[in-house]
């Protein structure tokens, strides 16, 4: 680059540069500023949305945890859960809300609603663990409504290792309902072995095994 000798020449050069680039620079600054403010506004909006979901979820937990529920509380819980699922569908809040909704519906003998809620989580969630929980619970509902074949189908898909003992336990229940004691015994034994390895306690598993005559006639 050529040496610029006098102040005047330098000033001229700057003016020259401004003429050709000034407007571009200004536009750049405006765009950058708009970008930053826009981003911040978007974040504020997101934050507001998330806070709303968080509050609704906290209320839902409080209702689901109480021992006795009246119809009012139940209606409120269902509307909270619906809101979380429709407005924040992809979040973990929505998944958990689905599970909680099912539990509350079961308390009110509303099996259809419970099944629907669990189906939504099992089919709609992005999180494999939540899907598996929902499927296992769904299978239990199907056994309870005298449809153990559907339960077997629901339980076909693999679940995370930590839930396999649970899955086998429910499989066993399905086989008992289908009067297939040998398969049931196998599933319960598998559940027992897995639970032991994972340091889990599944309530009643030993009772069910014992009742099948787990000890083959010696």
């Amino acid at each position, binding site marked *: 680059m050529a040496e610029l000798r006098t102040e005047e020449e330098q000033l001229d050069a700057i003016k020259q540069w401004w003429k050709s680039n000034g407007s571009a620079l200004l536009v750049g600054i405006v765009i*950058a500023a708009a970008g*930053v403010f826009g*981003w911040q506004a978007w974040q504020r909006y997101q*934050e507001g949305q*998330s*806070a709303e*979901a*968080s*509050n609704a*979820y*906290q209320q839902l*937990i409080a209702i*689901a*945890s109480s021992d006795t529920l009246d119809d009012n509380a139940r209606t409120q819980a269902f509307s909270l859960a619906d809101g979380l699922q429709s407005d*924040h569908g*992809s*979040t*973990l*809040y929505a*998944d*958990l809300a689905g*599970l*909680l909704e*099912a*539990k509350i519906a*079961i*308390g009110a003998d509303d099996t259809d609603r419970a099944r629907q809620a669990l189906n939504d989580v099992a089919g709609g969630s992005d*999180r494999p*663990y939540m899907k598996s*929980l929902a499927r296992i*619970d769904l299978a*239990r*509902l199907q*056994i*309870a409504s005298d449809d153990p074949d559907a339960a077997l189908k629901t339980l076909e898909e693999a679940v*995370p*290792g*930590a*839930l396999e*003992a*649970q899955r086998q336990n429910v499989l066993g*229940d399905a086989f008992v309902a289908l009067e297939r004691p040998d398969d049931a015994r196998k599933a319960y034994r598998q559940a027992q072995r897995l639970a032991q390895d*994972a340091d*889990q*306690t*599944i*309530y*009643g598993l030993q*009772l*069910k095994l*014992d*009742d*099948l*005559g*787990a*000890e083959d*006639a*010696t």
Partner: protein
Amino acid sequence: MLQRIREGSQGWVAKVIVGAIIVTFALFGAESLVSYFSAGSNDVATVNGESISRQAVETQVQRGIRSGQVPPSQERQFRGQVLDQLIRQRTLDQYATEGGLHISDDQLDQLIVSLPEFQDQDGRFSDELFTNRLAQAGYTPSSFRRELRADTLRRQVQQGLAASTFLLPTEKARLTSLQQQQRTFRYAQLTAADLGQPVAPSDADLQQYYDQHKEDYRRPEQVKVSYIVLNQEDVAKDVEVSDDQLRQAYEQARADAPREVSHILVTFGDDRTEQQARERLAEVQSKLSQGDDFADLAREYSDDSSSASKGGDLGAIQKGFFGDSFDDAAFSLDPGQVSQVVQTQYGLHLIKVTGVDIPSFEDDREALAQQVKLEQSQSLFNERVQKMTDDVYQAEDLSSVADELGLKVQTSGWFSQDDGGEGVLSNPDVAAAAFSPDVLEDGYNSDVIETDDQQRVALRVVDHREANTLPLDEVRSQVESAVKAEQTRQQLQELAAETVASLRKGQAVTDIDWKQAENATREADGAPDAILQEAFRLPHPQDGKTVWGHADSQNGVAIVGVESVQSGDADSDDADFATRLAQRLQAQIVIQGLTQTLQDEAEIERN
């Protein structure tokens, strides 16, 4: 690098880089770049690319040690646990954040204000308490907020999982009916006496058993020691105490002795105001001054119904039982006196001391003398301990030390470090001293060991033997009884199997002493546990045919025949308990299951 960027600032590549830097600074501040370049050096682990700093681990470790929950000796082990926990938490934090879980600053503020730890006596949030408590626990306000936020989000996940567990009515009915199931069965115990002839193990049997169970016949390394014991009690024997000293000690003991107390309690809050309660007690006080009986007034006025019927009598109370203000009054009164109005958490009291729970001076004399002698002998004892320490260190034996101090040298039997010896030698510090290199290998006197406040021990090793597997001849009788027990059990099992086979075929079996259990539950007391367990594990009998089985029992082998099974009552009182238990266990499984699953899936690197 900067030079090159300037030189080439016409090029589009450089423009992009500069642009990226500007955007980064504008959005995230300079911190993000700084932390990006300085990461890695001080991390103990990374979880899915997020690092856990050494400092984070150390802070937790120090917090644990300072709180006294972790003894410093377990620091290393604790550090490992802390890191494991931080990794677990981090995976859950990431799960929560990626799942869109969120706590706003407002929600966090509300939470902090509602925590009882930061509230003053009136239940209001106190800024001062907040700052103090955080400082005590080693938090700054911002680090506390950060951790509380993460903790709250993790809790949202866990609470949601826990609250969503359920037990269906059909499941509940099935489990309860199984739990309450009743079985009717016959059983008989076969013992050694039922064998045709007692077992007679051969030498080869013994040898074989001994060879297979050599570990059971190992004797650990052992020593014999000579030792001296200095007791403060012995030193105290020679101390003279005067009557005055005894009386003084008695007065002191009396001041702290339990008081026999009666009281009149007037509560306030729901039914009356504090003012009304005070007026009520003023009425009692004026009646007392007119000579009314305290016990009668207690029956009439006291709100403490359990003591009111006994004239307000609370029995003997220790200091600290009802709180400071109650103690201050009760322990400053002489028997027969009544206190002013005293306020406690229960309400307002008038307290009357009816007696002091302490033996008379004469009855207490012996014990007092003992106690005073001990106190008086403290300095003398300290002198002796000092002398013992010096002498034991310098001497080449113990007997000269014993002579100097008027003690007796005693000799122990064999003992190992793990089991310790008899008496004072059972103290782990003493056993450890006997096996320390200085004492065991070099033959020096041990240090003086403080076994308790009033006792010191010193020792030296006089004999030593290495760990050894005892030869069969020395342990023959133990081996023999073990082999006999094993063979007896085997033969009984065979006998039981034969018997069961005959029973199944419907053949008559004689010489068996049957016992009957009618409609026994799982928790029935009648039959021994092993038999009960077997009875509930056998298949259901079909067509009234008894189902036979056998199982090891406490003193032999048992034959069990299940005759009938009765379903339990599904609506029993235990059903609700079972439901709660089932749900709690279920909650535990799904929460731990999530943690486990996230950890299995995460990329975790430990440095």
